């Protein structure tokens, strides 16, 4: 199946030597771990207030999607830099069944699961950059970025 990109993303330079957190997602308790790690990293990067909540919520939903649709995967959290801006890069990837119709999956209210996940449109509204690549039988990778103000 064709890959589909929703955001043209330039390569963002990540300063070398910066630690990256990789959180495996195989059970519901990993969702809490992932969002707490993400929140901690976001605080280090300089996010505050409602941004921290938004970032933690986004991680929670992406990790939940992994569990629901692919059973397992991982969330990779890292610092991003574009020009003078810094931000958090959240990558949620799995080797699950992939999403058959990405355009539909990006529509509000569309779900093929038990409707436990919140859907990608909600996540997209909460972040600055949103990118999804999905291939049937191979898996899905969602990359989102939020820049600190």
């Amino acid at each position, binding site marked *: 199946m064709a890959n589909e990109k929703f955001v043209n993303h330039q390569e963002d330079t990540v300063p070398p030597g910066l630690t990256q957190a990789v959180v495996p997602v195989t059970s*519901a*308790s990993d*969702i*809490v771990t992932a*969002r*707490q790690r993400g*929140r901690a990293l976001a605080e280090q990067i300089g996010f505050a*207030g*409602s941004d*921290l*909540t*938004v970032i*933690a*919520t986004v991680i*929670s*939903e992406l990790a*939940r999607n992994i569990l629901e649709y692919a059973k397992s995967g991982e969330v990779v959290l890292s610092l991003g830099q574009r020009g003078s801006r810094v931000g958090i890069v959240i990558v949620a990837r799995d080797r699950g069944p992939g999403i058959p119709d990405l355009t539909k999956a990006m529509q*509000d209210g569309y779900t093929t699961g038990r409707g*436990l*996940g*919140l*859907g990608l*449109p*909600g*996540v997209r*509204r*909460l972040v600055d950059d949103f990118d999804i690549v999905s291939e049937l039988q191979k898996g899905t990778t969602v990359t989102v970025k939020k820049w600190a103000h």
Partner: protein
Amino acid sequence: MRVPILKQGYYLIASIQSALSDEDLLHLRDDLVERVGRYRSRGAIIDVTVLDVMDSFAVRTLRGIAHMIRLRGAQTLIVGIQPEVAFAMVQLGLTLGDVTTALDLEEGLAYLNQQAEASRQHGE
């Protein structure tokens, strides 16, 4: 961590102390639905002040709890949703439906007392 549930008069107060896993939320649901019957409670207040995240599962579970408790003949109130949590919920399109909310525990108790008073007067 299991959420402690206090009994105060006709009401139950579930005071969330830390981040909750999915399992904790389901325990809270089971505990509250059972205790409403055991203590013949008229209302249950769930205090979510410490929660910095209410994701789709949390919101769905809270809605479910409120519905189940209503079926058991009591009322549920969610109190203490933080402004940033409210912001994220709205952006995500998460709603609590017809579940009653109040600013904090104090407002929640006042609301339940008011409701009880109104139904007493209505009964006379």
